[in-house]
């Protein structure tokens, strides 16, 4: 019983902590995925290492995490209020070629990071960006003003052959 309570408390604490820190710390994982990946190795290592916990205790811990993740994902899908608590809303960093400085400061994203994502999308000027959106998982999505503006490796090769 104690294992279930402890795992649940840590799950909630880590989830809230990641939520408070903000999107940039999530890298490419959602908060639920991240907290699962953080907790499971800890639970398994103690059971594997036979230090203080039995195999049974490790299984109970892992099953508890899986149960919490499943319930969380169900609630996230069916409850908008819960969804807002667990994952933050996307934030617009650039709109119509202009930095939205308030959001950039809130999310601690600087111009070099935005330009880096722009380059990956084949863009080189802010004017080419319709929207740059910081998604809930920490990735920055770049929507160009015109899809024709995006330069793909295939397009570069075609232009070189012409």
């Amino acid at each position: 019983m104690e294992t279930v309570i402890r795992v649940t408390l840590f799950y909630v604490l880590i989830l809230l902590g990641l939520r408070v820190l903000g999107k940039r710390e999530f890298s490419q994982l959602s908060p639920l995925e991240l907290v699962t990946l953080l907790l499971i190795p800890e639970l398994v290592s103690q059971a594997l290492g036979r230090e203080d916990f039995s195999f049974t205790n490790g299984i109970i811990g892992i099953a508890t995490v899986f149960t919490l993740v499943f319930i969380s994902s169900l609630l996230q899908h069916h409850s908008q209020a819960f969804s807002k608590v667990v994952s933050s809303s996307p934030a617009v960093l650039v709109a119509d070629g202009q930095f939205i400085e308030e959001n950039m400061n809130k999310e601690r994203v600087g111009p070099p990071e935005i330009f880096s994502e722009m380059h990956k999308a084949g863009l080189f000027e802010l004017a080419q960006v319709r929207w740059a959106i910081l998604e809930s998982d920490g990735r920055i999505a770049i929507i160009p003003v015109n899809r024709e503006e995006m330069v793909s490796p295939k397009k570069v090769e075609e232009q070189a052959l012409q």
Partner: protein
Amino acid sequence: MEEHGVPQPPDIEKRWVFRTVQKLGVPLIVLIPLLALFGLFGESSRTVSASGAAPALEITYPTRLRYNMTSPLVVSVANISSQPAPTLTVSFDAGYIGTFSDVSFTPSVSEITEEAYLVHLNNVPAGETRQVVVDVHAAQYWAHSGAVTASLGPEQPPAVGLELSTFVFP
């Protein structure tokens, strides 16, 4: 998002739909912490007692343990006769005790045979109770059982006995 003209996703009707593997697997997964919350996988102990013509026996022992857990096994022997007992002998099944590691007896074991660990309690006045505490450390999985008996001396047949059974979760 709306204030910057970003189109919002349209809503869909949210329904409770589960794949077959989830219908089968999720209840099993959820069952584990639920059973744990109700203590099914936790440590538990039981007290049993028996009395014969002379010594009465009461034992509190672990019925469920997890691997690597330590628990006490407490045996209370009472001289219920009207005469003092020169020796009361408590015998622990060697097969049962042998399934545990780091076993310590208080008072110490007086004699070890192939079948049993014997603790002699000397000069027990009439009406008095003595205790033998055995700290056991779960070292082998699954069910283990054995008997604890009390007799009026090392050479005497058991006057009273109790069967113990302990389950060790891996």
